[in-house]
Structure formats: structure tokens, C-alpha cells
């Protein structure tokens, strides 16, 4: 296994590792933001938005991610919506939308766990509804659902591998291409190690955040 000299193969793998990292971080941020907004709309948005967001969640939760990515790649292509030809962008959007549907359910359960009187008290003190949501309800809601959000983030890192199905040059794709080029299966071990270097620190980080916030409670 010719790894030590930074040859073309090692460079390709490193590029794949970096792409997976970017895809993971980008999609975690986007899906947390989008998922939280969707959860808020579902709880406080009124009947129409409630129905729309419910439809969104059910649609994206109930179809395989690979299928969504394949559709998205074709849909966003120059011949159709002309948004991107880059599989990375399609994968980033697809992963974010998909994961956000789960995130919204987790955040919604957190919101529902916050006592209704918290909202009433905040409004009674003169906060607008948005302020009450932002400064009173959401902080308590998110704190409750840190463990499931951590799970979803770790699952997302692993789901980036599915982007290889639309030929995004992420780590699994790189490992596959290198396996074919060098006829060495060992590239996949390297990919396993690569995913661990992301998921294990992420799990540790989530645990730390959880402990810290539990203390604040």
C-alpha cells in the first residue's frame, strides 16, 4: 500500500476526505438551521404552514436519500433548472433538506416539552412572540434535544457517503476510484478510519455540550 509518498493517489484520497468534511460541516449547519425553522413554523405557523411543513417532513423522511440525491442532481442540472452542474452542491442541498426533516421533528419534540406557561409568562412580560420563541422557548427546547441532534449529525456524516451515488468526489468515491486504479481493497479501511476521525470527535463534542448544558439547567 503505497501511501507515504504524497503521490497522485494519496492526493485524491485527501481531496475526498476534505470534501466529506466540508459536506458534513456544511450540511450539519444548514440542516440544524432549516430544521429549527421548520419546527417553529410547524408549531406556531398556523394551519397552512403546519400542513406544508408536515408534508415536507413526511415527503423527505419517507423516501431513500439516494433517490432524492439522484433526482436532485438531474433537476438542478443545466438542462433543467440550470442551478448547478457540481455534484457537491447537489449533495449539500440534498443532505441538508433530508436531515432537516429529522431535525425538525427532534426540535419540535423539544418545543413541546417546554411548559406552555413559559410562553405565556414571556408574553406577559412584554416580549413579542418572536422574542419569546428566540430567548425563552428555543433555548430550553434545544437543550432537551441535544442527544438526538447529536445522533442526527453523526448519521449525517455517514450519509455523506451516499453522495458517491451522484459522483460527488467525496471520501467513499475516492476510495472506490482508488480501489479500481490500484486494485487494492485497503483504501476502504482508510475510509473507515477517515469517517472515525470525524464521527468520534463529533460524538465527544456532543457529549461535552450535553454535560455543559445539563449543568446550566
Amino acid at each position: 500500500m503505497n501511501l507515504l509518498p504524497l503521490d497522485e493517489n494519496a492526493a485524491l484520497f485527501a481531496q475526498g476526505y476534505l470534501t466529506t468534511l466540508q459536506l458534513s460541516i456544511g450540511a450539519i449547519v444548514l440542516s440544524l438551521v432549516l430544521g429549527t425553522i421548520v419546527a417553529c413554523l410547524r408549531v406556531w405557523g398556523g394551519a397552512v404552514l403546519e400542513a406544508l411543513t408536515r408534508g415536507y417532513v413526511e415527503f423527505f423522511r419517507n423516501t431513500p436519500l439516494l433517490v432524492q440525491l439522484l433526482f436532485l442532481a438531474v433537476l438542478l442540472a443545466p438542462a433543467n433548472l440550470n442551478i448547478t452542474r457540481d455534484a457537491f452542491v447537489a449533495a449539500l442541498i440534498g443532505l441538508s433538506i433530508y436531515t432537516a426533516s429529522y431535525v425538525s421533528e427532534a426540535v419540535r419534540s423539544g418545543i413541546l416539552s417546554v411548559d406552555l406557561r413559559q410562553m405565556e409568562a414571556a408574553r406577559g412580560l412584554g416580549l413579542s412572540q418572536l422574542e419569546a420563541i428566540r430567548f425563552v422557548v428555543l433555548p430550553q427546547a434545544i437543550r432537551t434535544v441535544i442527544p438526538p441532534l447529536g445522533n442526527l449529525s453523526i448519521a449525517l456524516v455517514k450519509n455523506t457517503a451516499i453522495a458517491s451515488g451522484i459522483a460527488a468526489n467525496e471520501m467513499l468515491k475516492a476510495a472506490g476510484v482508488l480501489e479500481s486504479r490500484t486494485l487494492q481493497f485497503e483504501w476502504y479501511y482508510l475510509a473507515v478510519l477517515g469517517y472515525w476521525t470525524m464521527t468520534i470527535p463529533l460524538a465527544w463534542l456532543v457529549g461535552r455540550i450535553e454535560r455543559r448544558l445539563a449543568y446550566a439547567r
Partner: protein
Amino acid sequence: MKRIATILTMLFAVAACSAGGSSPAPTAGGSASPGGSASATPSPSPVPGNSTPASIKEKGRLTCGVKFDVVGFGFKNPTNSQIEGFDADICREIAKKIGVEAELIEAVSANRIPFLNERRVDLVISTFTINDDRKKQIDFSRPYYVAGQSILAKISNTAVTKVDDLNGKNVCSAEGSTSEKNVREKAAQAKLVLFKTYTEAGQALSDGRCDAVSTDDVILFGLINAYPDTELKGEPFTTENYGIGMKKDSTELKKLVDDELAAMDADGRFKALWEKNIGKYTKKEPKLPPAS
């Protein structure tokens, strides 16, 4: 300390799993074969040793890995599920010579060598380019076809006329193929987008994710069939000998295959199969290339 022990245990578990030798994961793919159905016959677990004419006779069938998505060479006809093409017919001729049935299973570019090494197939006849890297891993028969790598792009795309023009463009091909390597060598600045099958690459060309698809001309003919708004640009820029792959050190089997190819050429069967399958795509002379 306990945590380190846990991680070590996990590492060992992975190592143990892989040491088992069977690697089903990378043999997936071929998901988008136009026939709609995946490969037939899930084969038994890896068999040690080499295939010989005697072992094939004993098994009662000659198992060949062929492409299911390459028009003219190995193609699963969607209307009748028959495997058609030059590669498939050569397999049938060799089976006839041994006196057994031919069994055709799908082999995509990336799984051909594992299939041979695990003896899931006896022969791989799947537009398989002979090269030195592969010769270290497996044996090849004498060449039976000389292909050339070409460029396919939309007719409306006038920016691509030769291999140099691929620099800076999105170029689609299949992973694990010689084509990918050739593009990297001849147009180092090209952005390679590698799919599992050429069907997917053709779709990407059609909807504009790729500027060009580059691989052997023969495979591109199949894409022209599917996407009539595309054409070949420029002249082929490589010469690639297609050979029949078999597991390393299959001396007996290689002799039988080489002899049968020569016999087919001598008695006109080679020419007849050529004209039936690929005559309409190529102007090359229907003749067996000289053994190297």
C-alpha cells in the same frame, strides 16, 4: 484506558471481517442497466483454485462476466431479457467448444477482477482492455478487438473538438476504467466525474452535468443510440486491445480460448458474429487482431 481497549477491539473486528476474503460490497453497481433488472444468478461463495476446461465441464456450465449495458458487445435486451452482443456470442462459442451451457452474469468495470479472483466467473468478456497493471493481476487471452478512446459531446457543443479541449471541462467516464486513466494523462486539467456505469454518464451528458463523455468508441456508439443529439468529436486518441480475462495462471483455459478464437477466425464464425453485432457501428475490418 477502557476507551482505548474498546477502539482496539473494533479495529480487530474490522480486520477479521475483511480477512474473510469475501468482499460483497464493491461488487455492487450496474444499477442503471437499461434492461431494468439487475444481474442474474447470485453466485456461490468464492472457490479456490483455477478454472480449467475439465472443471467447467464438471460444473456443466461456462460462467462469463459480460457487460449488460454496452450495445453491440454485451447488452441485455429490454424486450426479451436476452443478453446480446459480440462478447456474449464469443462466450457462447467457447461454451459450445467445451460442450457446456453458457451462463452470462453482469460484470461492471470495477468488479471484473474480483469476480475472476473469487471464481464467481470463469471468464470475463466485457470490453476488457488489456494493460500491464491488469496483467499483473490476471491473465488475458489474445486480443479479439481493437478499440480506440474517443470523445462524445453534444452536437451543439463546438468547444470540444480534440482531447486537449477537455482541459478545464467536466469529463464523465466510469470508475475503474482505462478511459479514466487516459483522460488524466492526455488532459490533466480535465475535471473527471466518475460514475458506476456509462448509462449514468450518458444521462449526465444529456442534462449538462458533463461537457463530454470519454471512453472506447464502441461504448460511445451505444450512447449515441440513446442520445441522438450527441456525436463523436475528433479522432480516437488511443489504441486499446480488448481481451478475455481469466484468473492468473489459467494456462489450460487460456490455450483453449486462444485456439478457439483462431478457429472462429479461420472458419468465418468470427466474421459472422462481428457483422451481426458490431458491423453497423464500425468500419473496421472484421478480422481477429494478431496475437501479441
